[in-house]
């Protein structure tokens, strides 16, 4: 299992702040999870549509689609940041 977190406008779009999902066998990456999310209903496929600006962090460090995942990882999805 991995924990998925969603923040800000992305969280509102998918109406979910936190969930746990099973890791598929093989060598899963962030891309594997994103494919799973896109295969859900229209709300999810729209939120993760190609070309839309979102960021991902794995275990609280910035990551990308190729970042490998292992059981217990914390994967966070969020829009580009706007602090300061």
């Amino acid at each position: 299992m991995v924990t998925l977190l969603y923040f800000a406008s992305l969280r509102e779009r998918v109406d979910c702040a936190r969930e746990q999902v099973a890791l598929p066998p093989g060598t899963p990456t962030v891309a594997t999870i994103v494919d799973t999310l896109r295969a859900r209903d229209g709300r999810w496929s729209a939120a993760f549509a190609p070309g839309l600006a979102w960021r991902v962090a794995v275990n609280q460090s910035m990551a990308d689609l190729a970042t490998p995942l292992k059981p217990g990882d914390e994967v966070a999805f969020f829009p580009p940041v706007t602090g300061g």
Partner: protein
Amino acid sequence: MAHVRVQEAPFDAGREIAALTEGRRDVGAVATFVGLVRDLNDGAAVSRMTLEHYPGMTERALEDICAQAAARWDLLDLRVVHRVGPLVPGDAIVLVAVSSAHRGEAFAACEFVMDFLKTRAPFWKKEETPGGERWVEARASDDEAAGRWVEGGEGRG
């Protein structure tokens, strides 16, 4: 070395600056930046703002940015305080304070920390305007401001 804090409560800029200089005689310069909530953004009146963040990663990201600044310039100390939660126009959002022996390092590092914070620290602003609530969009100019430190250029644009 760096002191990083994320909090809902207001901060006292004077107290933060004092903490950089208390008990030491090697500080020749302190550069500070304070960011505030404005009552106008992207053509709309802003009555309220809520700042969301990613607890845990936020602190790590800020500490990493401070470590990068400390590796790049000869600094004595750094402090970053960032507020989260509900804010209104006029409220201070963020403080960056940097101490060094000479002003050049302090000025440069202070700007570097702010430029990186704006593009790498996981904070998100939601504004309340007459047209309703809206998430603030990231600005390309912020990416450019951060990018110039990476490319090694010193001037803007």
